[in-house]
């Protein structure tokens, strides 16, 4: 049995407001990047194609911001319909959101898993995802 019900945990994970409560009882270990010398041809095979939504599409953003961006795009596509396949490019709204998230990326790109401040555009955008 865990400390909190899984559904409650999911609600916490996707709720709109971030509290800086720390993570009691958890062991936080810095996320080390694996060796980048990927000499194996297997890796090349995997990298031949990218899925539609990929963090690589948002290389100028930090990974958390890119994840939020992908979530936002999925959310918008769910409401508006995916016009990217039809239009052959990102919707203007997506470009706007990416520009907004770029601000966050610039400000905290050096940290491994930055936590967005509640009042930043990232937090408000993240909130919209889950409403």
């Amino acid at each position, binding site marked *: 049995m865990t400390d909190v019900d899984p559904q409650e945990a999911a609600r916490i994970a996707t709720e709109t407001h971030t509290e800086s409560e720390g993570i009691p009882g958890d062991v936080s270990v810095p996320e080390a990047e694996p060796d980048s010398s990927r000499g194996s041809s297997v890796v090349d095979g995997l990298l031949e194609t990218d*899925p539609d939504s990929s963090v690589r599409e948002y290389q100028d953003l930090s990974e958390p911001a890119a994840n939020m961006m992908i979530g936002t795009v999925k959310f918008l596509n769910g409401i508006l319909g995916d016009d990217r396949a039809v239009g052959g490019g990102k919707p203007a709204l997506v470009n706007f959101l990416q520009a907004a998230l770029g601000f966050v990326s610039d400000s905290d790109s050096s940290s491994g898993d930055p936590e967005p401040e509640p009042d930043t555009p990232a937090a408000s955008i993240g909130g919209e995802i889950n409403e």
Partner: protein
Amino acid sequence: MSDRYYLTDPGHVLISGATGAGDRYGGKSSTAHWWISSLIDNGWIDIAVVIDPGSGPYSFTKYKTLRGMAQAYQSGVRRFSWQSESAVSDVVRFVDELPGSACVVFDEAWMYSDAEGMIDVVRNLGNQDDPIRAIVVSQRAWDLPDSIRNSIPLKVWCGPITSEGEQYFKSSGMGHIPDSVDLEPYHWLVSDGGELVEVNPPVPEGFA
């Protein structure tokens, strides 16, 4: 489609083999580590979780509480390591509640082979809109229940093939595979539906 279709297909994977962690390259866990890292690095999945009661080589941030995972998720973390064989089903339920696709590595799966969460992923949760893909790692595949093994046609074996492993291949109707392949240490063969697909070189050392 890549000729290595199995890497990014949503089908579950069972990784077995006799090798342990090595000095130069790792074996089963290293292959799983490389696999799930590649999937999330390249955006094939949205969330990566490792159930790792055996202290494997995984570089993901470690958590002991669901609340901790939830708060980390809220701040943008998408790679999690759960270092216990207990509450596996709760972790799976949590991941299933989150939006997006996921991959869960069940390392040392024999330790919690009766966990409903793992069985549920293998039998049900790979086929939903936001699928959860399982990479099940167990030194001896035959230690896992039939309900899991039979639900995973894509099987990986990390070399070498021991006499014990040979028996496993034969009893699983794959006796032709060890007869035709001389598998070097840390190389890994892929079989799908009982047929040999290919043999791959060791994964990069950084994942060991």
